[in-house]
């Protein structure tokens, strides 16, 4: 790493940079001025997210290489996992509904005439 002759010379993004994505996320998600905008994001949710993200963001590929992929099945972290879970829940509910309808045919929902 070279010493800048003139200020400012960013270290991140340049050669020999030490800043990784985790450094950036650490700051833009966790630090900075908090203002409640018109679009309300539950900061608690985000903070919870970042705690988990901190573990995984810097290099997802690397983590996958290491066989660490639990977030893919964690509905809180993966939209795919959430979709899967929704689909599963949906199927389960349909099944239960079908069973109930079989048990009590008289109470099955009827189309209004």
């Amino acid at each position: 790493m070279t010493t800048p002759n003139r200020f400012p010379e960013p270290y991140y993004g340049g050669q020999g940079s030490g800043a990784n994505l985790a450094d950036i996320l650490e700051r833009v998600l966790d630090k900075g001025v908090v203002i409640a905008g018109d679009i309300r994001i539950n900061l608690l949710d985000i903070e919870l997210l970042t705690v988990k993200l901190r573990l995984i963001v810097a290099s997802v590929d690397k983590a996958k290489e290491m066989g660490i992929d639990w977030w893919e099945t964690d509905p809180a972290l993966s939209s795919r996992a959430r979709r899967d879970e929704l689909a599963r829940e949906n199927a389960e509910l349909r099944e239960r509904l079908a069973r109930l309808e079989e048990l009590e045919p008289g109470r099955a929902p009827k189309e209004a005439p």
Partner: protein
Amino acid sequence: MTRLRYVYAVCRPFRTPLQAQLTGVAGAPAALLHHHGLVAVVSTVPEADFCEEALKAHLEDLDWLAATARAHQGVVDALTTVTTPLPLRLATVFRDDSALRSMIEAREDDFRRLLDRLDGRVEWGVKVYLEPEPEPAEAEPVAAARPASGRDYLRSRRERSHAQEERWQRAERFAHSLHGRLAERAEDVRLHRPQNSAISGTPGQNVLNAAYLVPRAHSEEFVELVDRTKDEAPGIRVELTGPWAAYSFSGEASGAQDGAEAGAESGVHTGAESGEGPGVGR
């Protein structure tokens, strides 16, 4: 398509123009909104991506999050070269300019106070890593590695873990002493949680992850000080990042003053956003 206003930072008016092609999140150009003697740096974003529902989903999409975080940081970074911005947290979004103006009016005292405090200062990030344990020398005879008895095995295991413990303690002592020296040159400090290096792809264990608020005028000196320490301790790596906008010092306005004094004197983090001290990264 409905458009929303995404805000990156609040600054005092500045003369140097922003770079012409400065684009923010979602590729839209960054613009300035002047109000009550302050400047909000904004861009237009599609509601389809930044309404509550969409944002919630996006924030869990690592690729989207990474791109947005980099774009946000890109704008704040560009501002840092021309003024002292007060960086806002990612995804601060307003319906329109008039909502944004109302927010500025409501918070202008806070903004002014923070801007005064941070004026002419930048943040430097310093991380200390304990390098991965060196591989055992290949020349080492295989016989030596194979324990003759259970007792030998236990002893060699104990020795190994003892050596590891010693390496860790040495790294902690180094981090502590470095932090002390850097804190002396900084107006304020924050200790962040060590990053999980195993997964971050950064080799070694992160022992210290700290941010220092340093006047621009003293930055060169600060950087040189960090550079000088780099070869001080074998098996330990020091990484410097910055200059960042003062993200780590833009948090709660209250308590910031206490943090400034206590932090600079003792090198101990007192801010509200408490990271853990050195040594909890393992």
